[in-house]
């Protein structure tokens, strides 16, 4: 096991896990966000509560689900309910500390597009839409985005603003949004944060082995860059063991 070099997904899971605190409440989707939550629970955040929008609290799947709608993701939950409980009485009520969101595109202010893409000729292709994305982006106390670091995904202007971050660089109060907004972007190359004054994305750390100009070349907007640039901590031996032997042994999400 220790012969296999650390993979970017494992660095991402460990970085995400570090952002979660014991006792917090998180809305997660299937995939790397759920892996991240399980890792946090097994290490420093045993009383972290995971919510699935479909109506599941603190699931303990033994077989890897293909998505939220897979019965495998309901297994051994402490509670089964529905949207009104999870997204209403938890998220809308202001109880959710963290929401994890994926994206087709994001911009420097953490605005997220999951609705459509436009090609060079202007032709539009539709995708999944919001589902719970807009709800989480609007209401979670902080939002973590997880995506591949690519110039076509991190760009100056998203083709469609599905889920709001700091729209136009404005404060959340100005936008009439209760949730705190974007907090971290975790990619396969770096961890980004958001400057408290400008609300624009800043580079917080580079993953080991990644060059700064690689990140800059793959970011479609001007990134605030600190000097020096910290290194993203590698997963610990125990975190790696947990990920590889217990949490996702078949590499469904880490592979």
């Amino acid at each position, binding site marked *: 096991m220790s012969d296999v070099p650390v993979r970017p997904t494992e660095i991402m899971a460990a970085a995400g896990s570090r952002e979660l605190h014991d006792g917090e409440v998180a809305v997660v989707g299937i995939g790397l966000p759920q892996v991240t939550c399980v890792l946090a629970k097994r290490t420093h955040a045993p009383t972290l509560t995971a919510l699935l*929008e479909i109506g599941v609290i603190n699931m303990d799947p033994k077989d890897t689900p293909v998505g939220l709608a897979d*019965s495998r993701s309901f297994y051994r939950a402490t509670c*089964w309910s529905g949207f009104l409980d999870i*997204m209403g009485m938890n998220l809308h009520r202001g109880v959710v500390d963290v929401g994890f969101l994926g994206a087709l595109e994001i911009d420097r202010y953490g605005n997220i597009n999951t609705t459509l893409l436009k090609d060079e000729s202007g032709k539009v292709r539709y*995708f999944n839409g*919001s589902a*719970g994305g807009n709800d989480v982006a*609007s209401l979670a106390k902080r939002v973590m985005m997880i995506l591949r670091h690519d110039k076509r995904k991190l760009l100056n202007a998203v083709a469609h603003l599905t889920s709001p971050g700091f729209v136009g660089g404005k404060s959340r109060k100005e936008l009439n*949004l209760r949730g705190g907004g974007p907090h971290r972007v975790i990619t396969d190359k770096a961890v980004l944060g958001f400057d408290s004054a400008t609300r624009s994305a800043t580079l917080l750390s580079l993953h080991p082995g990644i060059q700064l100009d690689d990140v800059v070349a793959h970011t479609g907007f001007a990134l605030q860059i600190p000097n020096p640039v910290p290194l993203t901590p590698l997963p610990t031996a125990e975190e790696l063991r947990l990920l590889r032997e217990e949490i996702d042994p078949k590499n469904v999400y880490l592979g």
Partner: protein
Amino acid sequence: MSEKVKTIAEVVKTIPDGAHIALGGFAIARNNISVAHELIRQQKKNLTLSQSVVGLENDLLVGAGLVKRLIMGGGSLDRFGPVHCVNRAREASRDFAHDYSSLSITFRYLAGALGISFIPIKCLLASEILERLEAGSASKEDVSRMKCPFTGEEYLLMRALNPDVSFVHVQRADRDGNSQIDGPIWSNEESVKAGNRIIITTEELVPTEVIRREPARTIIPGHRVEAVVHQPFGGHPTGVFGCYDFDAEHLKLYVNHSKKAETFPEYLKTYVTGTKDHWEYLEKVGGLKRMDELKAIQIQGY
């Protein structure tokens, strides 16, 4: 007292063209496939569909050309792929779908279920989702803005959703329509109780005594229900918790056919219009042997 237990064909016959229907599934979980198929067989047209998270049942109906408008919170077929037919329809006409979010659709159903005409929410603000709703055909009919008269906080207001017919596929129901759902229920209670007519399809038709032993599991009480249809494997190829897993092979086959508009009619002809009812469809997708392979292991639910 009239008998509530009906066949799929009988209940679908009573649905007029142009009806607003809620089906109750979530992506590849507990979709109302037997109803979707029969709507296609009977060629019901110009339908409005509403759903918090769209899935296979909506994709089928849109692909069959029966849907005029889709009111949706988002959706996909999970890892199997997107809802290709829905996405093509959205590309063909910008006004085809009214996009919302999962929670906002649920709130609209909640208002409908409570009999209130609108409901405030703190989602969709500052997003292009709301811009499109305010600029398009949803504008004055469905969304508005308001400052709370007590606190001054800005809210989005949404009109209640009251489908003409709400369906839901459940694990068990009795002949009076008392319906119990196992596992998570996403927006089922709200979408069903918002319906002007409520029709249940059920895996198992049980004696009322079974219901009376666990009345806390009854999500929809019988007095609200117009008809009950007994249809085992009524959700195939989606999964029904506690009854059967989703059919991965058939979902892949479906996605392969739905990828392009040219290949979709072949799927419909083979599995929907080419079968006279859900039983014949089930035979075509592998019959008893396949259903036995998909049957849930009770302790897992899949």
